[in-house]
């Protein structure tokens, strides 16, 4: 299961890096979204995908899931949600002000 997840994470990462390279504002915004999904999956996977019991501590539990990565990933998801919302607003404003969503044209001249 961990192996499968690693491959999935790798695919998500490569797709996201591909989108980062594109010239379109919105595609770059989506790239950050995908990248954050990739790292969240990585965070859950890296601690080992245990099965068997819920992460409630009791003395007679045989299988026990590590709750910490889940707590961490929740926090990270909330943060990436906020950042994505902000980024979408910013790219919309940039598009409205500059009348273009082509990053090549948003490069900026050398002396201004």
């Amino acid at each position, binding site marked *: 299961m961990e192996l499968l997840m690693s491959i999935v994470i790798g695919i998500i990462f490569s797709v996201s890096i591909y989108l980062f390279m594109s010239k379109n504002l919105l595609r770059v915004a989506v790239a*950050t979204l995908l990248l954050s999904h990739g790292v969240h999956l*990585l*965070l859950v996977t*890296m601690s080992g995908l245990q099965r068997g019991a819920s992460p409630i501590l009791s003395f007679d539990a045989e299988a026990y899931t590590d709750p*910490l*990565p889940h707590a*961490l990933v929740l926090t990270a998801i909330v943060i990436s949600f906020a950042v994505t919302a*902000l980024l979408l607003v*910013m790219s919309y404003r940039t598009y409205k002000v500059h009348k273009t969503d082509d990053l090549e044209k*948003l490069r900026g001249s050398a002396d201004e």
Partner: protein
Amino acid sequence: MNNIIILPIIIPFIIGGILILLYKRHTMQRIISGITMLALLALSIFLAIYVHQHGTIVLEVGDWEAPFGIVIVADLLSTLMLLLSTLVGTVCLFFAFRTVSRDREKQFFYPLYLFLMIGVNGSFLTGDLFNLFVFFEVMLISSYGLIVHGGTGYQLRESFKYVIINIFASALFIVGIAWVYSITGTMNMAHMAERVSELEQTGALNIVAIILFIVFACKGALFPLYFWLPRSYFGPPAAIAALFGGLLTKVGIYAIIRTFTLIFNHDTSFTHKGLIVTIAGFTMLLGVLGAVSQFDFKRILSYHIISQVGYMVMGLGIFTPLAVAGAIYYIAHHMIVKTALFLFAGATQKITGTTDLRKMGGLIGTHPWLAWMFFITAISLAGIPPLSGFFSKFPIILAGFEEQQYVISAVALLVGLLTLFSMMKIFSYAFWGKQKHTEEQAKIPVGKLLLPILPLVALTIILGFAAEPIFTYSMEVAEEIMDPTNYIESVLKE
């Protein structure tokens, strides 16, 4: 008593929340945020003295015991950084009162400012790696808000790139956290330091160390990840540019110093003397060459941030107590002087209406105070004795020669020379020569603008003349962080 160390995080949080509700009343916002920053400054002075006398304070948040819960740790390095950050924050806030326009003030300027302070203070105080990530994000999201604040075309265009590079770095941070958690099974930095020393720092742990280094290098603008800095710091108003120039990169440098003295300090010939020193050399040289090639007040200063971040990292890379003490002294000197210089850029912009050096001239005739205060700060940056710049560069370069790191020390000396050159370029273009601003502009009073900068100029002189006690203090900080057992013992209570 140890509950007091959460106050630098809690106070701006509560006050910032209240200020959101008062967004229409800008006088009230000014008064409340001004008092808050002064209170924070007083608190951080008290904390610095208290920790110096009584040793490290640790707070286990919510009373969850150390390796399991989040800890807030105030040791000498944290309290020093806290003191510097609140000082810079206070000065920039008072400068912002005079320069930021009414419209911008009403757009939640002060709440964002205080939220930025939560992130910065929290990053300095936390003892938990994931918590460090969270405070980084608090700081970054507020900085995204402040850097586009006002929403001009230039700001939007450059901030988009700033946001993208930071989101990418944050994603890498989580990758680093995930890997270090899978190897050590803990998030507490003291516990992690203990586990890493048991496991011996090889293979996978070195990769994690380098990933975290890349993340912090991106936030701290090290070679080759500094390209976002000069353009994005050019856009926002002077008070914000000064705050970012003085504070934000130093949070990245603090994180590098913390992780590479506490956790990843077992393979120094590879990480410190190999990787970090090389990167520091390139950062210094390319940063200063960028500054030499520019003809814009703010851009020269932005490139100088890069070259000076190189000095701090060089001090860490050489990794002797003398060099690390020099790096800490350098951070103090740099935060004070760089903020002052950016504020001077703001003051000259207010007079001449431009930051292009070729369109300025003769300011020394009409505004002599501005000119001479700038001159003192500029030569301090370049490292002319007896000002603070000299006494912060001297131990780093001395330690470099002692450790037979001749190449990097020679680079550091050359960079000092080029810094002097580009500072004198600003001085001769903007202040000497023929007067290029109109008679009406010459009558613009800057006294009230210079007042908030005055403490910073005074501090650079004091840091130079009182180098002996301050260097002794940096030496104590350096010896404490070079020997992580104190940190580990006070957090884990062994």
